[in-house]
């Protein structure tokens, strides 16, 4: 079992560190080059959201299993302002910052499972998984 790893996001440099960590873990778990790129890109989007909207937070990568399948789980947590309307932020093109509004819906498309828990004024936790084929 791969040990879980956590990257703390405080600056734009940490976004690169988090996605490199995710890619390395995906590689160790046997994901191919294209899935490694999908996972690294999704983590890049989610880590950037932490940096842009919450300032600080964490990205944790761990191995997960379900009957007959192995995968990787990414948990992104922050104590930022939270998301008022999750349905709205999941729309393509919606953005409150200088991004293109591709971050959350894009990350969701790159991963297999994707869930958001968020409370205004408390923070946001995004959990996503990719299963090995």
């Amino acid at each position: 079992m791969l040990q879980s790893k956590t990257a703390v996001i405080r600056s734009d440099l940490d976004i690169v560190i988090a996605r490199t960590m995710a890619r390395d873990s995906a590689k160790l778990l046997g994901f191919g080059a294209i899935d490694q790129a999908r996972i690294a890109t999704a983590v890049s989007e989610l880590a950037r959201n932490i940096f842009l909207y919450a300032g600080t937070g964490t990205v944790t990568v761990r191995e997960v299993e379900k009957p007959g399948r192995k995968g990787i789980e990414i948990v992104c947590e922050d104590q930022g302002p939270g998301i008022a309307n999750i349905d709205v932020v999941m729309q393509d093109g919606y953005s409150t910052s200088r991004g293109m509004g591709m971050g959350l819906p894009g990350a969701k498309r790159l991963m297999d499972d994707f869930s958001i828990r968020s409370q205004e004024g408390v923070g946001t936790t995004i959990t996503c998984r990719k299963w090995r084929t």
Partner: protein
Amino acid sequence: MDSLRIPILKIGDILIASIQVALHDASAVQFKDDLLQKVHDTRAKGVIIDLTAVDVVDSFIGRLIADIAAMAGLMGTRVVLTGLQPAVAITLVELGLELPRVLTALNLEKGLIVMQRLTEESGDAAV
């Protein structure tokens, strides 16, 4: 903190920048500024950005590349993107970033041919 600078080489009328490192946001923005300044200073007719060594292009970098192409276009300079890895092309499209207005070529060599054709087409009539 100092951001990492991407070297920009000039060959004839063309500028070539090969990105060899994982770009963080600040160094990517620095690259955009450096490149546009160099286009202005050298009056380059074309710019090739080679991404052969880049394994992740997220929405921030993707947008920045589209911006560079649009901005250089406003200055009268064409941008060709070369060497996109298959995994990068797949993730960009899945992410929803198809960069429809950015010219691309399979590799640097083909990029140079495309660039030659483009700069010949635009000719020296305007000079």
